[in-house]
């Protein structure tokens, strides 16, 4: 399924690469075409508006970052159920640091907040070999309790602060737009005019591109840049190779003189720092720490990591899907309907492709059925409005049912590796 792309380290022949590029391009074109049709059929200009796509981008970032952080730890063989807690640590740290030093320091504080919990997790899992699920769950509970307890001590009674929120952070990190397209650096903003212009196709394209490139926070750019950066680290660097080896067969790494523990520590810490960064990003939006503002995003990040099959590209696809449906769910009802329409159509196309590729009718049944159901639901059934808030979860579930990628977790995931394999 196209949602799970694999970044492959093997230099492919340029031919294979071209085929791939063409496939990606045709999916994008198909998607755009369907969005056009949907916005017309469902009378939902929101599906291609810059506000929806801008929202989608902003909602994607925290999930993508926390998931990509989890990728480090899990690729190195440490299950990370504690993401939610690390993110909470990040929000609290960001609240504290941001209060003193403004938005940039808030991000730093977020990273530090995540790191503290990551260090705890690393020590407990790597040195003592405690069950990684247990430690993760414990970290989630601990982080929530600590955040509140510490807020009571630090923030309570301070102007603007309370047991549930830090004093407000003044200022924000800069936002940028593309110059000459979406009005960056004081240049004109032709995309906005085009979007408002109402010329079919052009207006929608301008909406999408404009939404993705206008007023993007630098923090979001940093967060999204972590994905290609991680792909680079994973496939091209020593650390990446060692990390993958530590998660696949730590004994092999050790036998060749690599340092399993050092690698795993580094991976867990990098991952927790990223989770903390994701928390910091949330704090920048609310201009302060707000209790419970993580709101389950850590768990969604974990789900996204698994959805993305432990691949950076997959993580991006998963978080983008999630962010987009979240944005749509917060928008107008007809936009939600339009999204269902697009999804249903994509599933039908997939079903058709599967039949044509000779994979048999059986392989096509799930996508066919779901596709038809979604189309019917989108076109003929009035949906309860509460359904929209479940949109990201339903969409992800639907994609999983249809895609059914063969999951390939790191082989040594969750396994303790003792420091020395003798009884000294």
């Amino acid at each position: 399924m196209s949602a799970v792309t694999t970044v492959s380290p093997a230099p492919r022949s340029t031919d294979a690469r071209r085929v791939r590029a063409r496939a990606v391009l045709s999916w994008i074109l198909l998607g755009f075409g369907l969005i056009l049709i949907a916005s017309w059929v469902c009378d939902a200009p929101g599906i291609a508006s810059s506000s929806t796509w801008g929202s989608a981008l902003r909602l994607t970032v925290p999930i993508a970052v926390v998931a990509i952080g989890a990728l480090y730890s899990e690729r190195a063989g440490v299950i990370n159920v504690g993401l939610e807690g690390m993110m909470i640590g990040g929000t609290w740290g960001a609240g504290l640091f941001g209060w003193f030093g403004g938005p940039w320091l808030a991000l730093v504080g977020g990273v530090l907040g995540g790191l503290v919990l990551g260090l705890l997790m690393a020590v407990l899992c790597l040195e003592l070999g405690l069950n990684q699920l247990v430690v993760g769950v414990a970290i989630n509970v601990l982080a929530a309790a600590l955040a509140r307890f510490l807020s009571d001590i630090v923030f309570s009674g301070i102007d603007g602060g309370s047991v549930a929120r830090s004093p407000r952070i003044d200022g924000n990190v800069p936002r940028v737009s593309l110059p000459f397209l979406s009005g960056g650096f004081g240049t004109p903003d032709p995309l906005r005019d085009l979007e408002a212009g109402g010329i079919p196709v052009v207006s929608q394209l301008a909406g999408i591109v404009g939404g993705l490139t206008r007023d993007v926070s630098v923090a979001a750019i940093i967060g999204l840049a972590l994905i290609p950066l991680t792909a680079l680290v994973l496939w091209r660097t020593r650390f990446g190779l060692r990390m993958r080896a530590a998660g696949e067969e730590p004994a092999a790494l050790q036998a060749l003189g690599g340092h399993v523990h050092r690698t795993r520590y580094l991976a867990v810490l990098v991952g927790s720092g990223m989770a903390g960064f994701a928390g910091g990003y949330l704090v920048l939006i609310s201009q302060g720490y707000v209790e419970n503002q993580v709101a389950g995003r850590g768990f969604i990040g974990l789900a996204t990591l698994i959805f993305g099959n432990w691949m950076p590209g997959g993580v991006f696809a998963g978080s983008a899907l999630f962010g987009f449906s979240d944005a749509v769910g917060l928008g107008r009802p007809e936009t939600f309907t339009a999204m269902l329409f697009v999804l249903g159509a994509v599933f039908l196309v997939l079903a058709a492709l599967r039949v044509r590729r000779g994979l048999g009718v059986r392989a096509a049944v799930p996508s066919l059925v779901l596709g038809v159901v979604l189309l019917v639901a989108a076109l003929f059934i009035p949906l309860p409005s509460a359904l929209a808030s479940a949109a990201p979860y339903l969409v992800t579930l639907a994609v999983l049912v249809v895609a059914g990628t063969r999951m390939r977790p790191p082989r040594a995931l969750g396994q303790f590796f003792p420091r020395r394999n003798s009884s000294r």
Partner: protein
Amino acid sequence: MIRRILKTVAGPVIAIVLALVVTAVFLTVAGYSASSAFEVMWDYGTTPESLASTVNNAMPLYFAGIAAAFSLRMGLFNIGVDGQYRIAALVGAVVAASLPLPLWLTLPITLLASMAAGALWALVPALLKVYRGVNEVITSILMNAIATTVVAVLLADVFRSGGGQNTGSAPIGPDGSMPVLLDLGGRVQISGFLPLAVLLGIGFFLLHDRTVWGYTVTVANLSPDAAESAGISVKRRIVTSLLASGAIAGLVGLPHVLGTAHRLDGTLPTDLMFTGLAAALLGRSHPIGTAIGALVLAFVERSAQVLGIVKLPTEVGTLFLAVVLLSSALGYWVVENGERRLALIAAIRRARAGRTKEASAV
């Protein structure tokens, strides 16, 4: 025998002592008096009312713990207990309120309906895992969120009864409520769920440790390949374990629905999964251990309510809970390492003694 008991008890005891120490450190650093906090907690927690309430509040935790244990024994992580019990609680509340039957019929039907609903909610992760290879954790997380929406829609649009701010299903009369098992006067009452909990624990133990099915689950968990070669269908074990876990999870919300609120409304506690999981972990997925874990956690929750009286934040209770969870793992680590050390020392001593005996015999 005494050694074995000591060993079993040592883990949780160490865990709790550790948690007390860590919490005390936090309190002291924050400028509170830890000893006074623990003192009022203990005083309040050991009143008869509190003890009864501890037992009652432990039951949902215990159900959640056993539900978690069911999946952990098969190497699965049913993080979907949350969604399962909320759906099941709605089903239970509706069934109990609407069946025009006497209590002895309504009660079992309600329990079964709730368990079926929990199992049904667990079916999705189970099937996706087996037929699509999708990790159960991700599906469970999604199903939890979807459960929230489904319950919301059903409660708001279909089963809502009465107006006002409270959104609840129809009230459950005495013909649908769980009767009190023991009434010692005042508010010292023990809920009728107690016998169910005991039965469940015995059943869990027998099923996992004394039946062929339990054996096959153990093998399938430890070595799926060996299981397949031995004719054990791993997929079927996965599905049955998750369904059983979901069914047990279906009971989690019932003590509240059938015993406290007598309807499903906004007061259904929403964080029982993690506390229950903590109980299971504290008790190493063993029913007795899980029961003890649930009682300890319920005790802490109950006794922490009193902290406001001495102007301490009630978060201390939550903090303590979190630390217990961590230190429970640590406690077992200490015990196991200590035991290994001791065994080694004993063995070396024995070996030395044997050598000297040999030498003296020659």
